[in-house]
């Protein structure tokens, strides 16, 4: 009975939306290009940082060490896409420099002896990100230099003592073998390790899926009020249930479109940076897609009672932003934090937030914890039903009509 009226409302919502090019573009394009755009911005911007780092290498001895370090520095900078200007001299520089490496008198003698310690001074101008990058390059060059020195010393001692010494073994007496295991205790396959990295990114990308749902549902109800169509619609025999269900189903259809856009965006993004070891499988794509679709529906269902209960358009928007921020907080933190490894009291708080379960579903899938994943899905469905139930129960046309 009421399904037929819901159907009319779904038809209208989709038709209306299909002609609202701006909202439509936001709902499809944001999830589609969100992740690649952020990645491009982040990597692109650092690459276009064109300021040159001025480096002075001051060698009081005028030995080949300064030349060696300078040469290495230029090579490494090239590899890392940094622009450097290295100049060597044997007196204090007169112009401003970003980095100054001082090799004092007696340095060469100290490192050439069997147990002498040489000292260098590295001074850098405060506040330059690139200087600190160059600084760490210099440190690793000096680390290599140390290796060479120790190898020489070992060789010398070996010659004197007549004991054959493998200098590489001498320097690295312990081997470390690393391995990964799953929460179940079983060893993780190489694929699973790679997938768990991809999973972080996928979880982050969920924000781009949740965001349009929040916008859609808010606009679907408040927009009708603003465009002066609401009062007529809710005075028709379409019951509040068919009204809410109609709008929910419209949001499901939109959710599926958004989820497809998001999944495609992620696939494109990951295939662009595949050399960095981020990997996708059909299963992970399918799970991400399902999670995304359910997330949209759940978000719409949660936002509806909040929008319906707001006393003004502005307070509804403020609440929507707040919810958007919570979603952003959760999904952004998945880039750095493992929710499952947080202290219990924090994890418990996060588990009350519906958005958390979307992220957990993906990581549980990757970790092979399918039962937990199923629970995450059920919780999301539960939140969805709760949202719909509360919307219908608390639907109050008086509040909706009189709110400013």
């Amino acid at each position: 009975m009421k399904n037929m009226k819901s159907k009319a409302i779904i038809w209208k919502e989709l038709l209306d939306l299909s002609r609202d090019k701006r909202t439509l573009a936001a709902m499809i394009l944001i999830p589609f290009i969100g992740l690649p755009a952020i990645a491009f911005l982040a990597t692109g911007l650092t690459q276009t940082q064109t300021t040159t780092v001025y480096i002075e290498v001051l060698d009081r001895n005028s030995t080949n060490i300064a030349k060696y370090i300078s040469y290495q520095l230029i090579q490494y900078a090239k590899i890392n896409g940094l622009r450097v200007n290295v100049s060597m001299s044997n007196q204090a520089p007169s112009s401003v420099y970003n980095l100054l490496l001082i090799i004092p008198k007696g340095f060469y003698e100290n490192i050439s002896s069997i147990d002498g310690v040489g000292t260098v001074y590295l001074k850098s101008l405060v506040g330059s990100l690139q200087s600190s990058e160059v600084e760490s390059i210099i440190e690793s060059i000096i680390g290599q230099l140390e290796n060479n020195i120790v190898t020489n010393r070992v060789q010398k001692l070996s010659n004197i003592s007549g004991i054959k010494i493998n200098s590489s073994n001498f320097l690295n007496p312990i081997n470390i073998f690393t391995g990964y295991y799953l929460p179940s205790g079983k060893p993780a396959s190489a694929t699973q390790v790679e997938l768990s990295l991809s999973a972080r990114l996928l979880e982050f990308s969920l924000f781009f899926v949740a965001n349009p749902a929040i916008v859609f549902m808010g606009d679907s109800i408040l927009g009708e009020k603003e465009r002066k169509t609401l009062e007529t619609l809710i005075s028709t025999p379409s019951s509040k249930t068919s009204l809410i269900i109609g709008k929910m189903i419209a949001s499901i259809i939109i959710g599926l479109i958004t989820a497809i856009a998001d999944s495609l965006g992620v696939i494109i993004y990951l295939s662009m940076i595949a050399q960095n070891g981020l990997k996708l499988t059909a299963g992970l794509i399918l799970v991400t897609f399902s999670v995304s679709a359910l997330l949209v529906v759940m978000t719409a269902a949660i936002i509806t009672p909040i929008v319906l209960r707001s006393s003004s358009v502005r307070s509804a928007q403020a609440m929507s932003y707040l919810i958007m921020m919570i979603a952003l907080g959760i999904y952004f933190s998945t880039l750095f934090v493992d929710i499952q490894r947080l202290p219990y009291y924090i994890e418990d708080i996060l588990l009350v937030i519906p958005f958390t379960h979307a992220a957990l579903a993906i990581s549980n899938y990757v970790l092979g914890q399918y039962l937990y994943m199923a629970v995450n899905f059920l919780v999301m469905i539960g939140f969805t039903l709760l949202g719909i139930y509360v919307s219908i129960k608390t639907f109050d046309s008086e509040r909706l009509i009189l709110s400013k």
Partner: protein
Amino acid sequence: MNWIMDKTVEVPIDNNTQYSIIAEKLYKKIGKKEVLKGIDLKIKQGEIHVLAGHNGAGKTTLFRILAGLLKYDSGKLLVMGFDPSKNQNEIRKYLGYVPEDSSPYERLTGFENLKLFALIYSNGNESLAEKYIKKGAEISELSYEDLSRKTSEYSNGMKKRLLIARAIMHDPKLVLLDEPTNGLDVFSAYRIRKLIKTMSNSGTTFVIATHNMSEAEMLADKVSFIAYGTVLYSGSVKSAIEEFNSVNLEEAFIKAVGEKYEI
């Protein structure tokens, strides 16, 4: 079955059935303000009944209560025999309502606007909906080309005609029009009044809220003066003018309000 026939049952004549609306001592507060202060009103089936009142008199609030959108605080109310605070869905089946400040869906065409409401009123019955749409198109007096355009391209008069057509295409028993000609030019307003006159001949009750007394005079079978949340007078236009010893309805309204509130 015979005993039914045999028995001479006295069926009480329910006077209420001849009334579309019966309101007794209707009160409504919005926030802290008492907006309706004991509305008494009887509107007969099939008449054009104009609620004439100043801005802020409570006309819109009353309409919203009649449509079941707002709940009244106390009093008695029957709309087509049902209490709108309990059975709004029964009422809404037979109701056409054009709110004061309303608009069609602007990204939809005229036809699509009619179709949405036709599908709702027919509960998805396509052939019935088709009939409603045809009727709506006819009532609106909009051309096929205009009905195929998005309503964002319509003039205010065209929009209003579409809204009214959309509200009466399903043959409702009661039609509420809140300030139907407000903001329209002379031609559009005339067209809409003509439309109302024509439609009311088929037995539909029209209740029209307006602050325009000459419009009230032109349209009304019966008029009710509504001021500051109460009904001051209810009757035919002619008797209103006579009762307040006036030359026209405007003067009668002013005198009626002046008597009560000593303005």
